[in-house]
């Protein structure tokens, strides 16, 4: 039985339809990331799951229990808000104890469980402080402790690491999945940072234009984005998207991209676009079949990698991600075997993956 099953979820504010017939399934103790650009409705979807969105229509099932019409207090889920949403007039201890107080646990049990979760999140020493006396990181951990302490089967995270510093963000990216796995808690995690999505999610659901356009393991979203829009959003630097020419060949098609040729096992769309990740672009000193000459326009370091902007002979610009900056400015470019996705520019959808490099014919 799914920890969470959303179907037919629509949210409309006046004439503006934010979510349109969205469906999402989260297995028990699975971590799903809801990824999308800002303003796309990720938070709205989370609020709808929590029962905080009065404009939501559709079905929400928690462990098979239909809670579509249930009030937020009757859903028994944990929520970590982006702005922490701590109760300013209560100590950190009382903040964390709130879900247990609602469950009418006795004082000894509350004290024991608050201490345990505070210990886990390393905020035991600040439990008696008011929220305003806590650092951002401690506020964050207090909010997480509050979401965890009631041991809900599902926790919703609304971009909880947006407001904390980079160091803490990296710590939490490692810590949170471990914590959730240990407690066998399912989670939906909202973020607009693809690195966070890769780190936090077993599956990534990409929300675009009011609907989930792709829901797949993070690596698959990265390697094989379902649409051109996903390819543009997911990844930094984003996927190279190069207009191509296609002709029918055998059972599939043959696509010419800036002097290179690839065979795909699908019919060619009218306006083919060839997509390739910067990591799959290879640089060589010597030319050979399957490589084209290129010129280095700029090199930018980024997280241990060198981002190389190249211009091919026909004017196409291409981004490569390399371990080291290339020595020469004139070199030859190839594509790693099997890398590349064929998109249809008209529909925006991916048509085929795993191309076979072919000899360029005149």
């Amino acid at each position: 039985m799914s920890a969470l099953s959303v179907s037919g979820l629509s949210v409309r504010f006046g004439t503006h339809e934010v979510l349109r017939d969205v469906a999402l399934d989260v297995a028990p103790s699975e971590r799903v990331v809801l990824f999308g650009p800002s303003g796309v409705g990720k938070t709205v979807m989370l609020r709808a799951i929590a029962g905080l969105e009065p404009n939501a229509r559709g079905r929400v099932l928690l462990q098979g229990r239909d809670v579509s019409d249930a009030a937020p207090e009757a859903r028994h889920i944990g929520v970590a808000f982006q702005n922490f949403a701590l109760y300013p007039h209560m100590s950190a201890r009382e903040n964390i104890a709130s879900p247990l107080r609602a469950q009418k646990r006795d004082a000894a049990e509350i004290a024991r469980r608050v201490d345990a979760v505070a210990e886990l999140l390393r905020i035991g020493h600040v439990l008696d402080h008011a929220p305003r006396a806590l650092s951002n990181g401690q506020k964050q951990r207090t909010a997480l402790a509050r979401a965890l302490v009631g041991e809900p089967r599902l926790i919703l995270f609304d971009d909880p690491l947006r407001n904390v510093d980079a160091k803490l963000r990296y710590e939490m990216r490692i810590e949170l999945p471990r914590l959730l796995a240990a407690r066998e808690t399912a989670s939906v995690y909202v973020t607009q940072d693809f690195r966070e999505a890769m780190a936090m999610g077993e599956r990534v659901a990409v929300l675009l234009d009011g609907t989930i356009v792709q829901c797949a393991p993070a690596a698959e979203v990265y390697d094989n984005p379902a649409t051109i829009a996903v390819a543009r959003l997911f990844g930094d630097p984003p996927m190279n998207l190069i207009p191509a020419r296609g002709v029918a060949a055998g059972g599939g098609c043959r696509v010419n991209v800036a002097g290179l040729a690839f065979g795909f096992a699908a019919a060619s769309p009218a306006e083919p676009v060839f997509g390739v990740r910067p990591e799959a672009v290879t640089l060589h000193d010597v030319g050979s079949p399957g490589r084209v000459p290129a010129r280095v326009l700029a090199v930018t370091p980024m997280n241990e990698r060198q981002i190389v902007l190249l211009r091919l002979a026909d004017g196409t610009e291409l981004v490569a991600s390399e371990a080291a900056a290339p020595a020469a400015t004139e070199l030859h470019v190839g594509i790693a075997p099997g890398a590349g996705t064929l998109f249809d520019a008209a529909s925006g959808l991916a048509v085929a993956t795993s191309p076979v490099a072919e000899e360029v014919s005149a």
Partner: protein
Amino acid sequence: MPVHDRSLRLLRGAALTLIVLFFMFPIFWIAVMSLQTNSQILSLPPKLVFSPTLSNYIALITGRLSTSVGQLNIAFMHNLFNSFLLSSCSVVLALILGVPAAYAFARFKFRLGEDMAFTLLSLKFAPPLLVLLPLSLEFQQIGLDNTYAGLIWIYQLITLPLILWIVRGYFEDVSPDIENAYRVDGHSWFRGFVKIAIPLAGPGIAAAGLLSFIFAWNNFIFALVLASGSKQPVTVGALAFVTASGIQYGQIAAAVVLSIIPTFAIALYAQRWLVEGLSLGAVKG
């Protein structure tokens, strides 16, 4: 630039002194007057050195006013009690009605909501005389004329709009996420209202309550028309000092001092609530 700083500080000090003098002098002078006899007050030039007398206060507290033509009974202490009863009951009623209403206006968008809120505010613009004549006739008919209940009801015209609009602003400043978080924790909506919304708007509720208490206390015209004799507050009761044998300045001054004390004491007490910024550091935007 220390020289610049010092001259600036001196200027600021001078300006503050001037302002304090301007506002405090009348109060100081009233206090001085309340310790003088009528003839001392009316002497020219006014004397700053005099032997103070408590006769004015004694007259007020015992309720016996001696004038040149004889003894006069006044009910000043009873007026003071009326003022206290009317103002505090009005504020309590306005808080009971106004705080939930302010919350509704702050949190929910509903049809005609803004119009309703504005209509309530407009009660503060309307000249009281506009409603007083029909009101006094109606009150006579339904038997609310010259009753505490009737006056407290009419005082809502003063206190309710004030509380509604001030407290609404404070509720709007409380992030809805804080209340949402409390509900997600498993608490009912009403519990969240009592345990989260009201404490966080506390300073605002205290300020609004205090202000409307002062406004109710200072009201003159409603009580003048709708109350007589035993139900009059101090503002109307002070008219008794305008007697056939002249105006009793000393007693008026003493009455003013006595009637300032309750509001002054409440303001001092409420001050710590007013300055307490409870909401600080709760939400990271």
